[in-house]
């Protein structure tokens, strides 16, 4: 008998579909209370860091250059007090097979799907990850379907997302495109059930294990080039995978004193599921609309427990404005001779400002660059914004920026200033949400210790947050 394919029926079978599509039973890691065994989930991949690196090296992934951005560093020093302005380096992840660090996540997931005998892979993503999965599937001989949220109700597509669809198709994938809304998950599940493909989720432990090599390489390259560990690593933050995987890789290399900074574009006030606001954003990722909800509630993705848990690793969370990122993207092209981004340059804009807080001999690494192309470039993004009635002008981004209304380009580089987000507020939010979600009246000692690890705090902080 054919299964009912209506919304409620498919969503009701979510757990079973997921289990089939991941080859992993998440119940094994649950305690029955708030806590779950995160490290056991990560170990369940069965791959060591070395094995992951080998898988990646077979498919054009990893060992990307670490570029010193000498002119951008010199520019930052013009706005810093004497003796200040850290050296800024960029991990040129655009050099990966599919043009972004997402190839690291995809390589591991697709290789695992192949090993388990799946015929194809599916991923729900409007970002670079789609192209990464499609590229890896092409190399490893698997079918690939990418499900994208791409259009508003007038059928107008975000240029950056349209470009990502094109790239997926170039690698032979089928791209299913949808209008705005979280019910994308229903279509995703339904196709997953019909095809029996592997869920190459961004948030599976395979995906996150794939990023650990990035952190490890940063540590090794800094030691080789500079004879020291990086003082600060800045990660563009959306779903939290970059922060999680990079930090884990750095720790595996023994970088225990590196400060981990998450950076997102401030899109406060724009609703991510709003049809009318969908095309008022001029960056489709790396923004607070993803960054904050995924940091404070990691388990609302397309897997039962997300392996991306950024608050376990981040020391600071900073924001920059859309105009800052646009400006720095142009600076990267004009002063360093490389066209990258734009969304991946969120960390670069933040690093430009953060460098000014650190002495000249300090080292800041931004963990990624990404490829650029038609639609996925500051000119089409600004042009699209202007067509959508967004006011674009020079000014003071921190004073005048209104997401969805304007883009304020800094009137000179001195106006690129990160803002410190209240990370303790995010930590408290995660703690409260976790306890509420588990429906637990009194958390156990194990729960308290779990929540302390989840937020890089201590049991006292957790207790205080819960009023215990």
């Amino acid at each position: 008998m054919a299964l009912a394919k209506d919304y409620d029926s498919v969503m009701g079978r979510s757990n079973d579909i997921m289990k089939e599509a991941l080859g992993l039973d998440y119940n094994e890691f649950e305690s029955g209370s708030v806590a779950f065994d995160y490290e056991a989930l990560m170990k369940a991949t069965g791959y060591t860091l070395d094995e992951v690196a080998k898988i990646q090296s077979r498919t054009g992934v990893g060992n990307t250059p670490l570029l010193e951005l000498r002119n951008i560093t010199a520019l930052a020093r013009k706005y810093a007090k004497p003796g200040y302005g850290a050296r800024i380096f960029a991990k040129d992840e655009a050099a990966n097979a599919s043009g972004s660090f997402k190839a690291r996540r995809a390589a591991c997931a697709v290789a695992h799907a192949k090993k388990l005998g799946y015929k194809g892979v599916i991923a729900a993503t409007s970002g670079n990850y789609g192209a990464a999965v499609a590229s890896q599937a092409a190399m490893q001989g698997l079918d690939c379907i990418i499900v994208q949220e791409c259009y508003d109700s007038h059928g107008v597509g975000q240029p950056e997302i349209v470009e990502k669809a094109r790239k997926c198709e170039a690698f032979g994938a089928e791209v299913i495109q949808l209008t705005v809304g979280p019910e994308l998950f229903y279509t995703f599940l339904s196709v997953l059930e019909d095809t029996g493909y592997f869920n190459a989720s961004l948030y599976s432990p395979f995906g996150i294990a794939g990023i650990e090599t990035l952190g490890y390489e940063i540590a090794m390259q800094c030691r080789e080039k500079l004879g020291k560990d990086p003082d600060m690593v800045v990660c563009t933050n959306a779903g939290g995978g970059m922060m999680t995987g990079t930090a884990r890789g750095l720790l595996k290399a023994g970088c225990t004193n590196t400060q981990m900074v998450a950076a997102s574009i401030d899109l406060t006030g724009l609703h991510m599921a709003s049809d009318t606001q969908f095309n008022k954003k001029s960056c489709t990722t790396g923004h607070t609309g993803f960054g904050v909800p995924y940091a404070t509630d990691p388990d609302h993705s397309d897997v039962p427990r997300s392996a991306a848990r950024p608050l376990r690793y981040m020391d600071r969370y900073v924001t920059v404005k859309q105009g800052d990122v646009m400006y720095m993207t142009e600076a990267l092209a004009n002063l360093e001779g490389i066209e990258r981004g734009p969304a991946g340059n969120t960390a670069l804009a933040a690093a430009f400002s953060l460098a000014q807080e650190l002495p000249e001999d300090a080292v800041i690494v931004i963990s990624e660059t990404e490829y650029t192309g038609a639609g996925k470039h500051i000119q089409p993004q600004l042009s699209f914004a202007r067509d959508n009635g967004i006011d674009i002008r020079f000014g003071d981004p921190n004073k005048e920026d209104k997401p969805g209304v304007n883009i304020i380009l800094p009137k000179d580089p001195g106006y690129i200033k990160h803002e410190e987000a209240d990370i303790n507020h995010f930590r408290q939010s995660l703690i409260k949400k976790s306890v509420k979600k588990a429906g637990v009246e009194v958390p156990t000692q194990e729960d308290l210790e779990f929540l302390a690890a989840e937020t890089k705090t201590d049991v006292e902080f957790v207790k205080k947050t819960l009023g215990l």
Partner: protein
Amino acid sequence: MAKKGDWVRIHSVVLKAEERTAKLPEDTKKCDLEMWTKGFLQEDAEIGDEVTVKTAVGRLEKGTLIEVGPYYTHSYGKFVPEIIEIDKQLREIMFGGDK
């Protein structure tokens, strides 16, 4: 007229506005959840007909035929004068200040 075997794009409504029960902002609640995909047309048809296509992975999917030989039109956008202003400013600050 599209021929059987042509590469085409189809459109369908996954959920009508009134069927959407997820937590949504007011504006999105008023919209259908729509879907597009591409594939080889399985029978001769006219634009606007309900058709079946075989997608890149070999899946059969039904929808309204909207485009034959679909292609991308996204671009590098129109001229944005602010971009050359940024270029000029950066070069002045970096290379023109100590003349």
